[in-house]
């Protein structure tokens, strides 16, 4: 298993990251990937989001993401995983997070990619603060994210 986990301020290159999962090998049949972006209409307030600041818990973040990827590996047949999460100051339209999973078959790749995103949303120590014309506000955790993560706990 080829695992890459990065927490960083700079943007990432989706094409290069996806290509990296199959470069130089002929056993990858499927790569499922996900990009999360800052939305302007996400504010808990009525005004559009102007700036989004991402805080994290250095050290624990990498550990938590590594644990999530390890769990995915025990559930599905995977060949590679890349997880990148940005921190710092972002604006609407900016990429925040990237998850890509390579496998022989698409069912494994899709399931693991969605699993990693759902667990990342509820278990990795990142926090978002939105700034709009009405001021700054820490984003509330969403119940739908807990529900999405709980799906994977069914026997």
């Amino acid at each position, binding site marked *: 298993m080829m695992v890459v986990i990065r927490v960083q301020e700079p943007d990432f290159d989706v094409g290069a990251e996806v290509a990296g999962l199959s470069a130089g090998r002929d056993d990858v049949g499927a790569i499922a990937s996900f990009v999360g972006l800052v939305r302007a209409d996400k504010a808990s307030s009525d005004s559009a989001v102007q700036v989004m600041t991402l805080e994290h818990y250095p050290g*624990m973040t990498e550990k*938590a993401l590594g644990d999530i990827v390890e769990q995915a590996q025990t559930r599905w047949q995977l060949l590679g995983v890349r997880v990148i999460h940005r921190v710092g100051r972002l604006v609407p339209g900016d990429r925040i997070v990237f998850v890509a999973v390579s496998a022989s078959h698409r069912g494994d790749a899709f399931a693991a990619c969605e699993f990693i995103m759902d667990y*990342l949303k509820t*278990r990795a*120590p990142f926090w978002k603060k939105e700034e709009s014309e009405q001021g700054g506000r*820490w984003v509330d955790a969403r119940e739908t994210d807990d529900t999405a993560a709980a799906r994977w706990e069914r026997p």
Partner: protein
Amino acid sequence: MKILFFAGLREALGLSSEDLSLPPGMTTVGELRAFLATRGEPWTALASTKNLRFAVNQTMVGADAPLTDDDEVAFFPPVTGG
């Protein structure tokens, strides 16, 4: 031990970390939370933060997780990354 605070809780406390000797008789992360909350304003935020989360040595744990004086403990609101 080292205690860390993140996000809204960090802002409420005006503090991101504190070095503390684990007070005698304190054996769980929940007890440490209650102890810190008794310090008065702004520390009541530790009691009032909804669904407060705990990590010991960078792993999320429940309120009954045991503590030693060598641990790194973190308190934070529910995560909102991704």
